[in-house]
């Protein structure tokens, strides 16, 4: 297992956000945390990232216990729901930020930034500021920025929520392709079944802080193990 959560519990002001959550994800997998809003999926993602700390339980990444490691030492890339691009930096500077932290040489940073700009097909837009970009472009920059320091794990929080429906499908396919090309282990949070089923090769269904089922999209769809899963999947008009 590349990523492993064991018996994780977390409460916020008496609200049980995670209730004995355990799961593992193999290297190179693309996993989706799927559940209705308020189910605790974002909390799991944030605990993996080190932005929130669990009350009990263990988190292992690449065989290392990271419980006490702050987020900036875990080597994780994170794409935020609203991208959180630094407004006073150009696109290129945004992408270079994580590389500067690693004290890479100027030439190396420049090369890596150009490589990533090419990957996201924005070669000519490096000098722009975030406010001059469209939603889809911002999403791509946020993705490139997270990938720049070559993390071992990529976490994405509702990556398509802020994008309008027309572009969403297109961007989804693009992201799936990109992640496949880079070959990075990824976990993304979504409340949209269609999105989870289409993009992920492993789906973790969460409800009220508990894991309901873990499996491939097909398993989830054809062999729902709990009532909640069958309801949650069937209420949608998703057809294989």
């Amino acid at each position, binding site marked *: 297992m590349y990523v492993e959560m064991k018996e994780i519990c977390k409460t916020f002001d008496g609200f049980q956000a995670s209730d004995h959550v355990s799961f593992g994800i193999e290297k190179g997998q693309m996993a989706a945390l799927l559940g209705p809003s308020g189910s605790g999926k974002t909390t799991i993602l944030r605990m993996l990232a080190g932005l929130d700390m669990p009350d009990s339980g263990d988190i292992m990444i690449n065989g290392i216990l990271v419980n006490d490691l702050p987020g900036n*030492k875990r080597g994780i890339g994170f794409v935020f729901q609203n991208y959180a691009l630094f407004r*006073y930096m150009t696109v290129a500077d945004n992408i270079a930020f994580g590389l500067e932290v690693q004290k890479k040489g100027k030439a190396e940073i420049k090369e890596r930034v150009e490589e990533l700009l090419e990957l996201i097909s924005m070669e000519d837009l490096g000098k722009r500021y975030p406010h001059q970009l469209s939603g889809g472009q911002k999403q791509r920059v946020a993705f490139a920025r997270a990938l720049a320091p070559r993390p071992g794990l990529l976490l994405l929080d509702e990556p398509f929520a802020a994008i309008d429906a027309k572009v969403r499908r297109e961007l989804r396919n693009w992201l799936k392709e990109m992640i496949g090309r880079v070959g990075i282990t990824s976990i993304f949070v979504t409340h949209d079944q269609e999105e989870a089923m289409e993009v992920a090769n492993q789906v973790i269904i969460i409800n009220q802080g508990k894991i309901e089922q873990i499996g491939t999209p097909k398993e989830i769809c054809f062999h729902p193990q709990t009532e909640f899963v069958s309801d949650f999947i069937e209420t949608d008009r998703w057809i294989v």
Partner: protein
Amino acid sequence: MEQQIVKVKNKKGVRVIPGFGLSMGVTLAMLSCIVLIPLASIFISVSKISLQEFVEIVTSRQVMSGYMVSFTCAFFAAIINGAFGLVLAWVLVRYDFPGKRIMDGMIELPFALPTAVAGISLTFLYSDQGWIGQLFDKAGVRIAYTRIGITIAMVFVGIPFVVRSVQPVLAKLDRQYEEAAMMLGAGRWRTFFRVVLPELFPALLAGFGLAFARGIGEYGSVVFIAGNIPYETQIAPLLIMSKLEQFKYSDATAIALVLLLVSFLLMFLINSLQIYMQRFVKN
């Protein structure tokens, strides 16, 4: 102008404040009575003397040294306020602790306290016999009756400007920016200076400008702690008072006009810079 007004009217069917006519009337009246006419009277008073006389007054050695003292002390006070006010605002917004509300309320005290009272108590504390001044005196640093003392009085009167400018911006600042920096491996210092500070910079600049302008004009608290020795610790507003004491109204207003113009220029520059930076913020 006219088109703009029409737009506003069309956009908002219901206006909360009753009527453009009434509110604009009140605004014009207030602005004229309290701001514009008194300011205009300065220009009128100055216009009674010739340009040559004006230049002679404002470039006389004592007046020039007064400007120097006022501007440098106000500048350093505003710098100190910028740093100190930022920390204060940070503590007030980001942490919860007992007595936070009281501390928050105390920020405005320098506005409420008569400046003379502030000046007298600061002098009492910072003179070489005072509680704090004693400690510095042992280290060979005199605070009261030096330019350091003037700067401290200006820090006192200027601190609310910075705190109250930065506080709301900091409270509204999305934590995701800091989290994003953290996830990219940045430590606290880098996150603060590269990510948070640029976001706060326009507000910080506004606070700095207001504190600077206030320092330039400050009289009440400074005269007590200044020592008022000509060419050393004499501030420009004191020279204005001394001209008034001699019934030389136009001389006094001439000195005041220069202070006013410098403050205005400063606020103008800072506002322009803020408008320039505003464009980054829109989504």
